[in-house]
């Protein structure tokens, strides 16, 4: 069988008229499918590449590769704003309000870790941060976030196990406003988007927080290993809490995270951050160019 070497190391075959031979098209298709772009998106990208090749003409495999890279980057819309809105409204020491960030997603994607890492980035930037441990469900979730708080130098507001997550979230925003922190980051329990009860609960968390403060950012944490189900996750979470940004975690592994092509395009919500490991400093801004280069190998 053909090797599954990454696209970057492969040889594309060019036909006389400047089109690609069948094997080369298949190789490009394989690269995209194996990166979790999904069958439909892969077909679309290939169609776009075909018409670009026809329109512009190519002479070398390098040109084909460059064109594919261009099409992929363009599909990710590099013009989208990817800044995380985690800065306070006015000066908190002087009546201003903290930024409020809500972190959501299905089970085990990396929400708590991302919350900790984001706090680290803000603290390193000279900001004060308060963590809200609104996952009162999973065993030791509160302790996990509190440990992150100690690690990065941020106070954590803890709820009792089994406490109402909405009230813990409210309390943390309340406390953050009183103590005048720059940002309140609220970690929520993992929940599958198919569980309507749990999704209603999440909707309530946001509504209750909004009674006290504006929610500036709702980050949906997607695991890069996730396949086509990621799109459904993103749709449902967006319906319930109006997601404003995606965090793509575990990109330090072999998974490419190609589901974000569909997610970004369908929801119009940009990927803002990527997780590159379990450590406090393993969080980086999402850069379409670098992401596509890693995808093409």
């Amino acid at each position, binding site marked *: 069988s053909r090797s599954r070497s990454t696209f970057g190391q492969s040889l594309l075959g060019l036909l006389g008229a400047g089109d690609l031979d069948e094997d080369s098209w298949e190789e490009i298709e394989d690269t995209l499918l194996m990166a979790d772009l999904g069958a439909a998106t892969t077909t679309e990208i290939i169609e776009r590449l075909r018409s670009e090749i026809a329109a512009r003409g190519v002479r070398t495999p390098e040109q084909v590769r460059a064109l594919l890279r261009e099409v992929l980057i363009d599909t990710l819309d590099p013009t989208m704003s990817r800044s995380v809105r985690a800065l306070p409204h006015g000066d908190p020491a002087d009546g201003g309000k903290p930024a409020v960030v809500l972190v959501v997603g*299905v089970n085990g994607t990396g929400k708590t870790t991302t919350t900790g890492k984001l706090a680290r980035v803000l603290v390193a930037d000279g900001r004060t941060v308060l963590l809200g441990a609104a996952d009162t469900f999973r065993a030791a979730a509160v*302790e996990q976030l509190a440990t992150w708080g100690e690690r990065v130098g941020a106070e954590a507001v803890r709820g009792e196990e089994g406490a109402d997550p909405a009230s813990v979230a409210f309390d943390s925003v309340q406390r953050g406003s009183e103590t005048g922190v720059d940002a309140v980051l609220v970690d929520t329990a993992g929940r599958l988007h198919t569980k309507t009860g749990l999704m209603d609960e999440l909707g309530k968390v946001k509504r209750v927080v909004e009674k006290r403060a504006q929610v500036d950012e709702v980050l949906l944490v997607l695991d890069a290993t996730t*396949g086509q189900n990621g799109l459904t996750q993103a749709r449902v979470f967006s319906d319930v809490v109006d997601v404003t940004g995606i965090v793509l975690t575990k990109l330090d592994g072999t998974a490419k995270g190609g589901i974000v092509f569909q997610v970004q395009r369908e929801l119009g919500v940009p990927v803002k951050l990527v997780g590159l490991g379990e450590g406090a400093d393993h969080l980086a801004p999402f850069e379409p160019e670098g992401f596509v280069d890693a995808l093409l190998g």
Partner: protein
Amino acid sequence: MFDTLSDRLTSVLKNLRGKGRLSDADIDATAREIRVALLEADVALPVVRSFIAGVKDRAKGAEVSQALNPAQQVIKIVNEELVSVLGGEGRRLEYAKNPPTVVMLAGLQGSGKTTLAGKLARWFAGQGHTPMLAACDLQRPNAVTQLQVVGERSEVPVFAPEPGSGVGDPIDVARRSIDEAKRNHQDVVIIDTAGRLGVDEELMQQAADIRDAVTPDETLFVVDAMIGQDAVSTAEAFRDGVGFSGVVLTKLDGDARGGAALSVRHVTGQPIMFASNGEKLEDFDVFHPDRMASRILGMGDVLTLIEQA
């Protein structure tokens, strides 16, 4: 876009109805649709390829059934092949001749190992065993605390001599857990380990060292049903790095098609032993290949299509 495989097949195979036998063209047209359905179910591409090749072979050589039209006949073959790959040589857990039986859990970060540890403990206890949990994830913040809570909920003792969160040697804890179990007459030890990536050589070596310290009777690879194309590289990395004797598929309570089941099974040949389908201790079942097959193909409607012969 059609939502389900049966919709797509019905549309592509409209013209085939009434024909008496399977032509190569019929089979090819069907195979293309099945390929897309499997890809949408997150079956890994190399696995899709080899699976379809197998199906085509069988379809071409198949006896022509009077009762089924060509489309139905191909679907029937696909379904049978899926069930057979997913379930081939199902087996029971291996128990040690001299207790304790050691079950080690391994997998990517967040796949559901610690939660599974509690479920397994409860399951073993329900079978009359006296299980114990060993806290060998000393890396993830509060993984030890999490296992302790899980142990409390499942009413099973937890061996957790080290605080974790970066402190303690997991290999040493694993080794000592066996003595501890012998001393207290616990006949099953379930070893919870840290999540690790296939490409993390250092942590993979640590997993192999834990394995060597306890020589598990079963090493279970715990994999999230939502995983996509990466299932193959990850399963291969765990197979080569630590080795496993069985697979547990988690988070099946969602709506992911779970093509990973086919990928992992196909690539490693190891049986899928259990299904984890919720966050609570009781959300746990032995694996049912037939249910998984219709789930991957797009639920029961495919089989209904066959029955409408």
